């Protein structure tokens, strides 16, 4: 009997020690909270939007819909964190730039194009914005990898300049695209009731999974993050790998920018993706990844991103004003990090163990 109990507690301990346990536990706690206080949170209804197409609506749909950008950014941020041991705080500003480029290429000089008056196809515009976002990522990467500036400081440059550059690209005008097809990327494709961003996020995750499965990128970034010198002695090129992670983050930024801009069919340089860099870093931290680099778990980060979105949606549901939202978020974040802090967990484990040990002696 006692042996069985021991193995059970061992199993429990093993699960608790898994990195992915923290975000999943947070996810379940939040879901449980909603289940207890208002089971209506889980209701999903099939309705019709203004165009008469079927759409799913409900709080859970909102979570996976609005959490898409954050999940996509969390992928890139995890790589950057793992390889460089620092974070990119310029992603919000970079999204503003990528979005601005996207609109500029689509609209040209005409800021109010009618449905058929777009300059190029969406694909061309998206590719251009990808290239620009990756170029800015590469700029950050050069500062970090070649000039050896700490990532947070290096990206502070783009953080300060990004929104100004975005405004400058469009001469501070706010183009509006009235073509309904442009709204598909951030809304619904007619006939499909699931929001498109969900598919884009899943596609990004699949690509990331394939990259991790078929290339050595994951191993290399971890090696560089754990010890740069020894990875160099093992024949890796730490400078290139660090640089590459920033370029990958640039690509993620471009995809997130497409969704963000498409949601509004327009852009507001000072507001778009505001504070998303903080949320993205938080997602990585909630996933239990060390912010000082080294080993990472991509899926934990992605779940972390959805946890943040679930928290936001839950708070909105209880009619917390959007400006006051950060205060509640802060409390939850502090609770989460305190309980996932290694020292606290050790103490907790010790507390659990000591009565059991006493029993054993008795």
């Amino acid at each position, binding site marked *: 009997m006692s042996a069985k109990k021991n193995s059970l507690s061992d199993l429990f301990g093993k699960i608790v020690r898994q990195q992915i346990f923290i975000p999943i536990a947070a996810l379940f706690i939040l879901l449980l909270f909603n289940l207890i206080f208002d089971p209506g949170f889980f209701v999903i209804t099939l309705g019709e939007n203004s165009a008469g197409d079927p759409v799913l609506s409900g709080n859970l749909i909102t979570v996976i819909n609005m959490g898409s950008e954050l999940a996509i950014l969390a992928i890139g941020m995890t790589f950057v964190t793992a390889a460089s041991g620092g974070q990119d705080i310029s992603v919000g500003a970079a999204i503003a730039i990528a979005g601005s480029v996207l609109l500029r290429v689509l609209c040209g000089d005409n800021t109010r194009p009618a449905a058929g008056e777009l300059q190029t196809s969406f694909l061309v515009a998206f590719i251009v914005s990808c290239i620009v976002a990756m170029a800015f990522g590469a700029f950050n990467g050069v*500062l970090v990898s070649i*000039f050896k500036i700490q990532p947070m400081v290096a990206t*502070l*440059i783009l953080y300060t*300049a990004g*929104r*100004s550059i975005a405004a400058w690209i469009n001469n501070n005008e706010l183009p509006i695209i009235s073509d309904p097809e442009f709204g598909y990327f951030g809304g619904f494709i007619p006939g499909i009731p699931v929001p498109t961003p969900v598919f884009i996020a899943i596609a990004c995750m699949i690509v990331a999974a394939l990259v991790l499965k078929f290339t050595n990128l994951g191993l290399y970034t971890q090696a560089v993050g754990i010890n740069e010198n020894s990875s160099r002695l093992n024949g890796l090129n730490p400078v290139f790998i660090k640089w590459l992670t920033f370029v990958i983050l640039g690509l993620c930024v471009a995809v997130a920018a497409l969704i963000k801009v498409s949601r509004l069919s327009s852009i507001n340089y000072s507001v778009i993706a505001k504070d998303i860099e*903080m949320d993205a*870093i938080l997602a990585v931290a909630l996933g239990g990844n060390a912010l000082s680099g080294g080993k990472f778990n991509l899926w934990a980060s992605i779940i972390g991103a959805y946890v943040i979105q679930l928290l936001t949606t839950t708070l909105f549901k209880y009619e917390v004003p959007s400006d006051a939202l950060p*205060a509640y978020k802060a409390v939850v974040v502090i609770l989460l990090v305190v309980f996932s802090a290694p020292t606290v967990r050790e103490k907790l484990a010790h507390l659990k163990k000591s009565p059991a040990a006493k029993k054993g002696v008795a």
Partner: protein
Amino acid sequence: MSKKIRNMTDSNMLLSITIIVFLLMYIGAIIFQGKGFTKPQTFFNILNANAGLIILACAESLVMITGGIDISVGGMTALVSMCCAVYLDHHNGNVPVSMLIALLIGLAYGLVQGYLVAYLDIQPFIVSLAGMFFARGMTTIVNSDPFNVVNEQFVALKLTRINVPGMGSINKKGVYVNAYVEIGVIIAILIVILMFVMLRWTKLGRSFYAVGGNKQSALMLGINVKKTKFLSHLICSVLAGIGGYVYFLHVGSGAVTNGQGAEMNAIASSIIGGTMLTGGVGNIIGSFIGVLSLATIQNIVATAGLGEAWWTGITIAAMLCLFLVIQSVLMARKKKMMKK
């Protein structure tokens, strides 16, 4: 020359670069922008407008020297100014108590953040990120509408001007006007001097450098690493409370948008002043000059007729980039010379 560079400490070298660039920039402004910058009052106005930021930059430098970071100082500025504004106007409070409120907010923040960072080993970035979120959210909960404080006692203090002896200029009417500074500037300069003395000559000040430079060897030297880290965050938050109050004294209003981006400006000033985020290297005088450089750039952009708002952001970023690259290249060169 190369020998001289080799003999300089990191901190001194970075500081001298900062001072040289600041002087060049100011002289350039005088040459190309003309009269405005020759008036002493222009310089003192920069001080007046940035007294709060100077204190915040000192606070930030201290944490960065100890190897941490605190991004909650901007949020705290907003929280302090809003709490004090609400207390002064809606509750007919008096000024000394409002100062006490600012200090208490700083103290409370410092205790919590310091404990979490030092004793629970949570990354300072995450802790102060939560601190920033909390402060911004709390500010909205306390009061969401911006308003100007009309409390007489406070307004009198806000309008108090201290003449600078021997400095002044003749205005358009031909009358000699003495240059002045606000009370906040006096507080800021006192804090800069205090922090400089503390970091350079006291045991505690040196232990901040030791912990930031190398935790292991600091431990071997018998320094209480955790306590030092805790103290750095405590002092930083208390200073941020004071800085928030000084900022409040300058703007005289409570608003959610107060101190927006102040944390990044404080970090940028510290970096321009030669403080390194890796810890162990830094100088308070440098941070002071960093703030001045940042403000001078803003002034130059504003007076150069580059009216479009985006130029400020782009020039500051370009300057930051320049400084970072210079620092990085010089450090790399120095390392090479040391090896030889």
